[in-house]
């Protein structure tokens, strides 16, 4: 396996996460659990006027789950739930090893996690935040909220 797997982007987001904090103005929250390691995180979003105005996460996790979630929040804050769902789908395909170069560009910094596609043991870590996002946005639709 690549020795440089823990690249600068990943290490930086893990050591200095921008979005690891509570979010008093959150309009919705959802907890995700990685059953293989017991790590859990809670994602908080503030959705207003059809736009994700702000977001944060709380909880403990490995560098991969923490960095992946932090990068995800960088990407989705300021976008609509539909755009966020689209990015999440792209991210899922990147981890599944089925993504084009153009699509990879859309994912910006999240592309730093592409090599996870070759590490099956860590896929659940990388997708924890994104899966939680999917659940949260799914509930928003079925719950008729926002």
């Amino acid at each position, binding site marked *: 396996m690549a020795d440089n797997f823990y690249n600068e982007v990943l290490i930086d987001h893990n050591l200095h996460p921008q979005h690891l904090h509570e979010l008093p103005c959150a309009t919705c929250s959802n907890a995700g659990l990685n059953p*293989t390691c017991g790590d859990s995180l809670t994602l908080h979003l503030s959705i207003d006027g059809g736009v994700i105005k702000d977001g944060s996460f709380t909880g403990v*996790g490995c560098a991969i789950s923490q960095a992946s979630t932090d990068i995800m929040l960088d990407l989705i804050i300021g976008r609509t739930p539909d755009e966020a769902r689209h990015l999440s789908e792209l991210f899922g395909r990147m981890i599944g090893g089925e993504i084009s170069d153009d699509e990879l560009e859309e994912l910006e910094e999240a592309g730093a996690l592409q090599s996870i596609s070759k590490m099956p043991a860590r896929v659940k870590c990388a997708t924890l935040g994104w899966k939680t996002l999917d659940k949260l946005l799914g509930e928003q639709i079925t719950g008729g909220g926002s």
Partner: protein
Amino acid sequence: MSDYKADFPVFAAYKDLVYLDSAATTQKPRQVLEAVEKYYREENANPLRGLYELSVKATDAYENARESVRSFIGAASTREIIFTRNASESLNLISYCFGDLVREGDEILAAVSEHHSNFLPWQQLAKRTGAKLKFLECDKQGEYTADALNAALSPNTKLFAIAQVSNVFGRVNPIKEFADICHKNGTLIVCDGAQSVPHMPVDVHELGVDFLAFSGHKMLAPMGVGVLYGREELLEKMPPFLYGGEMIEYVTRDGATYAELPHKFEAGTVNVGGAVGLHAAIDYINSVGFENIVRRESALTALAYEYMKQIPHVNIIGADSAAEHHGIITFTVDGVHPHDIAAIFDSENVAIRAGHHCAQPLHQHLGVQSTVRMSLAFYNDEQDIERFITTLKSIRGRMGYGG
């Protein structure tokens, strides 16, 4: 020092491998692989039923394996040796067949450091019967005291479950002393030997335990064969575990009488290949000798422990003396998640384990979410420990921490 690695083909196939996960499962020596292959090539038939030569050979192979296990752990009779799939199945067997030995209002006591396999079966038994499950707590060093045990036992405690060696602490518990205390109280003691039987001489008579469970795959044998030792008079009283072929004496449309021990607990076609492998593993262990095994494993444990103690930000879980670790050192590194630690070791071809090691109640008791564990066997050598230490020293730096 002899090069035991030469006996283990995986080290030839995977030249750069530093294998430090023997508490999860050990590697298998050529002698075991060859014995299993020879059985399937030359002696395979369905044992216990065929009235022809090959079937008799298969039966003998199986029963000889049982005898070798009996003598390995000092049991009185082969009637006390039941083959299962692994330690987990052995422990489940006891919990399902406890019959009316445990009733509503009774208590079951389990050590808090138990592997889920020696804890969940008791949690379930308690739920089924209305008994109460209580825990015996250890200190930060992983030590259990006789005083604490005496205080935790009540006149209603029917059973006490504890491992001889914890798979997190690596500490040896004073089973003989605890067995005496339990018996004075009318309490049965179930001992999980998964981490002790492979690494030190274990004699069920000397220990005085009522049950002992262990897995073949953690002691050089193939996966899929395990052992339950039980005192004969207890096994006699217990109902069968699974029902089917081979475990009956006589069957009619509305009833059956069950076979004698140990077959009563071995329904269906058994794992002869696995038992033959376990027999070969015991022969191999005896040929190396426990004296050798214990000496080597203690020296390597001490080497790793002394290095680790000097690395800043590395925190060892459990006893602060290498002598109490018996080949198992569980630790954390400040600021780095155990899964990331394991991934960095993996990038250097060092196999170690990260997570809660199937001991979540213990991790809750110690206040840590998850940990990293290195565990060794006599086939490891000093170079393995040095590679482990070199990588361990580099971890914080690689994760962006200065110095």
